[in-house]
């Protein structure tokens, strides 16, 4: 299973996303990483080019709702059905909001690498 991990927006905190990239790689996933400050357009394009099965957005600056809405719009516009998820500094009260917007899952602050890996293993079974 192929996963793209990405950093939308201007936030440059990338320790967490790279830790997760290592974790998923160790668990046998094929991981792509977008690098910093990518637009949602670019992220979707990278996802399509690499034919990934899931897209992760890592956001720590507090702009997660704005960026998730943009993600949902573009995914709908292009009629894409790739599950996407959000992690980073996410208040737990926004988890439902993000999932309502269209995220397959949102991982609030304090989520553990192994929990995220577990979620992906379950997703793998479904896919």
């Amino acid at each position, binding site marked *: 299973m192929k996963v793209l991990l990405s950093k939308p*927006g*201007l*936030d*440059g*905190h*990338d*320790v967490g*996303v*790279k*830790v997760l*990239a*290592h*974790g998923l*790689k160790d668990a046998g996933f094929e*991981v792509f*990483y*977008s*690098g*910093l*400050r990518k*637009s949602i357009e670019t992220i979707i394009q990278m996802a399509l080019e690499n034919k990934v099965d899931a897209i992760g957005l890592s956001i720590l*600056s*507090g*702009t997660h709702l*704005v*960026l998730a809405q943009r993600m949902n719009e573009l995914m709908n516009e292009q009629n894409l059905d790739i599950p996407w998820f959000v992690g980073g*500094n*996410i*208040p*737990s*009260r926004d988890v439902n909001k993000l999932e309502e917007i269209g995220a397959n899952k949102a991982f*609030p*602050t*304090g989520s*553990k*690498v*192994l929990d995220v890996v577990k979620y992906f293993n379950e997703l793998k079974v479904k896919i």
Partner: protein
Amino acid sequence: MSEVSSKKTSEDLGVKKVYLESGIEVDPIYTKDDIEDSSIKHEMPGEYPFTRGIHSTMYRKRPFTIRQYAGFASPEETNERFHFLINNGQSGLNVAFDLPTQCGLDSDDPRALGEVGRVGMTVDTLDDFEIAFKNIDLDKITVSLTINGTAIIAIAMYIAMAEKAGYDISSLRGTAQNDILKEFIGRGTWIFPVEKSVKLVVDTIEYCAENVPKYSPVSVCGYHIRESGANPIQEMAYAFCIAKAYTDGALSRGIDIDDFASRLSYNFDIYGNLFEQIAKFRGGRRLWAKIIREEYGAKNDKSCWLRMIAGGGGGGLTKEQPENNIVRSAYYALISALSGTQTMALCSYDEAYTIPTEHSAEISLRTMQIMIHEMGICDTVDPLGGSYYVESLTDRFEKEIKEEMKTVDKWGGIVNAVATGKIQESVSKQAYEREMGMQTGVVDKVGVNIFTREEENKEVEFHPYNQEAANNQLKKLKKIKASRNNDKVKELLVKIKKDAEDDNNLMPSIIAAVKEYATVGEIVQVMKDVYGEFEEPIFF
């Protein structure tokens, strides 16, 4: 030496082996034999190579400075805060900037949507600096600009503002973070390719050495490197390599080492093993002094000083049982004081999940004040000097930091190591190992993997986004673009471009342009046209 006293290793004594985060093995007992070769016996604080501190009397004369970090969204709010602080007897402030300003985007750039004023003050033009510093006596307040990618523009604006207000810039004080190399390793607000980014830092050093000699244009940050996953040896080694890169650049412009080395300062991180951190600072301070004197031939003692802000790092704090962070921060403060810091800052205990409240910010402040006023921390200089363990570990750190710097040389020097992602790759791998170590219980963390309890759900809080302030900023920008002399701005932007093409120092032309209200985004764009942008190597 008797048979008994030589038995002091873990194996001799039949106890488990212990390793520091840096990989150094620690013996259960240290004796005078461990520091036999050390020169420390004859060394006094305030004397080269300054292992014991850069001043002879240290805190007995004046305690370390307390400087907590704070950010305000608009120039108007920042100005209010300045006046509040001055009225309360304070004399300095760290200015945080929002991400568009740090990344060189104007408030009206589509990429800035939702980010204007979110994590700090917005700056589009000199007008914003003029609002922020309205009726502030720049001779009395020292301003620290926490900005890197666009630091050359922020420094230019600060100088331009002072000049326009009639100050003599030859006596203007202040500091800027302006350490772009660490941004490539952690934090990420880089814009231009690595070599050109370093050139811009050197431009500020050269300009300040010649025109604003009391200004500190660079604060080299080991802090963010450590927070990104580096161990304490690497934190110091990479920071020193970075400082050397800026130093080499300045020397290549023909500046004398003694004309700028004393203006360089450092920002370091504290969490983890107490003795390891103290040895890191003592050994690092000695090594830096030797580098500046022996390699660069500095004559002035001040040039050899490792001046630092060393504060409690967020990396050591936990969301679990957050009150424990108050205790951790008190230890970090103690470490910082025992290491001879010049300035101290602590994270608030609730910072891992929320905006620090006034209450939690006050606890941080009181932590440092209790140490100064109740613990006798200021009475005696370098109280751990002469400890067999601390001196032995200090010697070891000096050696290990030096070795790690050689590793960077093997990677082709710091500029190449950063451009190719070599350092990013190694620190991110370590961050992963540390995180997994904590999650699987290999590394003990109280409240996280040992002595845990049921946690109540603590909500993460952000400052609510101030859409009105953002709209106001857009209006101001529109107004300025309509009222300034646009022909003049265009001409001055062309001049910056020409200077960039000719590899001239950009400070004079940027200062001229900001005086005519050229925007941060416009200036960055002409620089991008010449320099291009950094292409991030994808490593994890």
